[in-house]
């Protein structure tokens, strides 16, 4: 009997402690929301240089391959990016479970040099944005099957978010390869002329 009283007392103390810590804690990072705007991310990546804006038009073959990588239809007619000396930055959206995740991908000479979650809108699975998780993508290239050539350790309970980031990382690598081989005349946007 005494044992039970003691156990319950300990449980209550732990529970109250947990509740208090929780309510008082003021964490630095938020699970949901916009962490960085697209333009800020681009500026940070290329600083102090000014990158050139570019446009990749989704012609039939590019669209087909992009749809294969994502496993669903690709909307829109073109993809905007920024580049300077073989380095490109892509800001792409992909739905995890229900809401789009905004992901910034930096490709340098055909390899991923950085992936960052710029906005996360779902209430669960936000762990994908942790630097330790994102660092796994560094150095990844595209395999023959248009998938990442590195294995990425996932997150329990956030499988859909992990898949979304994997797909966007592979897609950015593919877009980069297409943008690098495109004739100069089709890359320009009307604003940049």
């Amino acid at each position, binding site marked *: *009997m005494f044992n*039970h009283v003691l*156990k*319950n007392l300990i*449980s*209550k103390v*732990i*529970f109250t402690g*947990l*509740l208090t*810590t*929780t*309510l008082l*804690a*003021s*964490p*630095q*990072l*938020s*699970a*949901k*929301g916009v962490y960085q705007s697209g333009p800020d991310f681009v500026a940070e990546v290329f600083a102090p240089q000014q990158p050139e804006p570019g446009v990749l038009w989704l012609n039939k073959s590019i669209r087909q391959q992009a749809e294969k990588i994502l496993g669903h239809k690709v*909307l*829109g*007619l*073109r993809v905007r990016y920024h580049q300077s000396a073989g380095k490109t930055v892509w800001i792409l959206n992909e*739905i995890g*479970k*229900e*809401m*789009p995740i905004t992901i910034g991908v930096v490709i340098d000479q055909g390899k991923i040099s950085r992936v960052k979650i710029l906005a996360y*809108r779902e*209430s669960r699975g936000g*762990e994908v944005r*942790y630097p*330790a*998780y994102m660092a*796994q993508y560094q150095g990844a290239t595209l395999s023959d099957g248009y998938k990442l050539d590195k*294995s*990425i*350790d*996932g*997150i*329990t*309970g956030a*499988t859909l978010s992990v*898949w979304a980031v994997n797909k966007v990382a592979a897609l950015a690598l593919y877009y980069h390869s297409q943008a690098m081989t495109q004739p100069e005349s089709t890359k320009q946007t*009307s*604003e940049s*002329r």
Partner: protein
Amino acid sequence: MKKLLLATLIGLSFAAATQAATPSTEEMWKIIQKQQAEISALQNQLNKNNSRLTETEIIAEATISAVEEISLAPAASKKTHIGGYGELHYNNLEKDDGSGDKDEVDFHRFVLFTSHQFTDSIRFFSELEIEHSIAGDGQVGEVELEQAYIEWDMANNKTAKAGLFLMPVGILNETHEPDTFYGTERNAVEKNIIPATWWEAGASLSGELSPGLRYDVAAHSGLFLADGEYKPRDGRQKVGKAKADDMAFTGRLKYTAIPGLELAASLQMQTDMHQGEGDKIEGTLFETHVAWQKDDFQLRALYATWDFDDAINSIKAGADEQTGFYIEPSYKITDKIGVFARYSEYDNTAGSASDSAVEQMDIGMNYWLHPNVVFKIDYQNQDNSSGTGSDGINLGVGFSY
């Protein structure tokens, strides 16, 4: 004379030639004026063309933007989402003591998710389930509302929930789509000890203490043990006119800062499992688990234990402690094929000296036709001291979307 004539002829022809090559100033002026007019006309034309080109570019840009906006709009503005999952099972089991066979096919679960985003920070989520395919008077199945809550992001790092929600305990209770776990049937420990799938009505608060360390705290309706019942699984009232005299509280800490690793611990307090009817029985559930994935290898291990007031022993001897654990290594041979083995042990009367534990070994394989469509096959070997364990094969197909 001849010479003079020749000289004159040469002179004349030279003069004529010079006259043809050099127009008069007047003529030159005319030519210049004419050329100037042509240049101006060309210049005008060029200016016009340039401005037309710019205009065309502006029109093209506007058209492309509008087309993109229209084609992208439906996806972005969709506020109500529908999802779901389902699993069909076939069990061919034989009891150790030969007392009976189970040869059964069952559409175990068919679930519809509906969610609605009111604003960026307020949303609704629900899960409606048909268990065992058919429900109604005298039928084997049930229609159940397993989740229905409003979620509100109060601040950047705090989310509140109110309504009917899944208990933040264990691995499977909150994430139970068939394509996310191994084995046709859910593991026996989470089913019989925790008991998954388990939902209650109440309010909760979740957030992040530091990157990778999340917490959940919840106050909610409690379990109720009717006469003669002692297992937590039998105490689930499923929020249907549930007795709410005595509440329960749950807290969880979850650590996921290292890629591939999840460490979590939950603690729950039931203030009275009899809800004021009969002897007061307090209960405390402690659960902890690890889920670790490294490349193609994955390990899941879970331990859960209930500690009840001794009064429960008068209902069933030894029920004051109910405990279980499992360990499940698995390996993905390819993207689509994974194999697993699971050892589990649970005991709903662990407080008694007698050996009443159920041990189960499962081995099997998942084949993912698509990341969200899975076929499963496994073999189970269950043993208990009374010799009524079931051994045999389970087959399943499951999906989620």
